[in-house]
């Protein structure tokens, strides 16, 4: 039996090849091939739910990035008009209401009006979570339009002191740290305009740390910004799933014969 040291040099080379997905003739070929074997039906069993979530996400209004100056000017004009019209209408309605109050009109008008709007908007804002009962989540909120940093601030300030310090080391708050300028609790608190907080919820780190939309959207932006100095130095390109994943040709050459 060779000691690990004796063949570790070889192993380092072999390891490189194994990591690249090459066949090396080493028994680990089999292990890694099995780990990257084609999907089983069971592994894809959640497809229907995921597709439903995708469809639901398509119904929600798309997150708006930025409006052109022209569009926002038009929007402002429209808003103004709506306000003017609304004022005019409310004046009219006011008149009507006054009339109703004074008994000049029959009753039902005032009672009917508030019911109209609700159901449609509820359905539209339904989110994917509602299809999976497994994990309780905070109710759907219209977070789509909210600024991501604002959101991170909100989440951040929910935590107590210790948790905040810890949270800053979490890559999820990387964006916030970057905006605040420093991985420093007080700095970020200042940035978010919040003071210290020592609520009893400090023990509920796990549960208050609930999933949240708006993950880092740049390919280089996920994870932790401590690694900014890193550059892909092994080619920078990811190969596709590196291992021959089919059961077809690649395996036959290494298959023993009798």
């Amino acid at each position: 039996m060779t000691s690990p040291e004796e063949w570790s040099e070889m192993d380092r080379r072999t390891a490189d090849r194994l990591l690249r997905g090459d066949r090396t003739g080493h028994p680990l070929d089999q292990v890694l091939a099995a780990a990257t074997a084609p999907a089983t039906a069971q592994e894809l069993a959640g497809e229907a739910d995921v597709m439903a979530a995708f469809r639901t996400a398509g119904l929600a209004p798309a997150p708006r990035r930025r409006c052109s100056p022209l569009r926002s000017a038009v929007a402002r004009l429209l808003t103004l008009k709506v306000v003017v019209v609304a004022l005019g209408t409310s004046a009219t309605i006011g008149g009507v209401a006054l009339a109703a109050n004074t008994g000049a009109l029959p009753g039902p008008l005032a009672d009917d009006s508030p019911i109209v709007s609700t159901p449609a908007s509820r359905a539209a804002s339904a989110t994917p979570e509602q299809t999976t009962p497994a994990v309780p989540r905070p109710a759907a909120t219209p977070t789509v339009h909210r600024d991501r940093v604002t959101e991170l601030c909100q989440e951040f300030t929910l935590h107590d002191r210790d948790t905040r310090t810890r949270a800053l080391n979490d890559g999820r708050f990387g964006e916030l740290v970057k905006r605040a300028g420093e991985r420093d609790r007080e700095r970020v608190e200042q940035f978010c305009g919040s003071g210290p907080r020592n609520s009893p919820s400090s023990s509920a780190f796990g549960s208050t740390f609930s999933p949240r939309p708006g993950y880092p959207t740049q390919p280089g932006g996920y994870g932790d910004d401590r690694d900014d100095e890193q550059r892909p130095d092994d080619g920078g390109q990811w190969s596709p799933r590196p291992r021959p994943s089919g059961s077809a040709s690649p395996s036959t050459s290494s298959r023993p014969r009798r």
Partner: protein
Amino acid sequence: MVAPEGLDDVVRAAQQGDEAAFRLLYRTQQPALLRYLRVLVAEDAEDVASEAWLQIARDLRSFSGDWDGFRGWTATIARHRAMDLLRAQRRRPQSSAPVDHLTELSAADDTADRAMELVTTDAALALIASLPQEQAEAVMLRVVVGLDAATTGKILGRRAGAVRTAAYRGLRQLAARFPPPAPQRPPEQRRTAAWNNPVTNSAAAALKEMR
């Protein structure tokens, strides 16, 4: 199988709401994510994976990047969801099965024709999950999810060099559970354990055996 460049287009199409494209992304990426999660959270992997996919479906349109970026992004989401779960449960990642059970998990069989089935995916994942967490994650993200060292480092919050070392160490530890490579091996060691050396692995070894 779609070529990686093709998958760049698929990512874009899915971002524009193309269902077929998103389905393809799911089918291509889900096995890797699920297996990675199995190494992290064992039997909770399926729940965590579906949670991750709900988020992916929801946030896809705000993602920007190609197929490579998509793989890194989805792995990041999956890991965050797994860490949320572990934090909530106040536990550490654990292996899905003790290594002793590997022989049961692998479809131990003397039939050489079934070589590829001798190591099942379950057994392989259990073996990798038995490594220290950083090594297991490095191996899974690099080999199974197919990320490079730098990206894996970003996801794990470590330097690329540290990721490389962790992956090497992991593979070396795994290799140590196998007998040394075939040419140096005396024939009588061959059949000592079904798991350790279920088959001969190279043409050279096979030839040697025939003599």
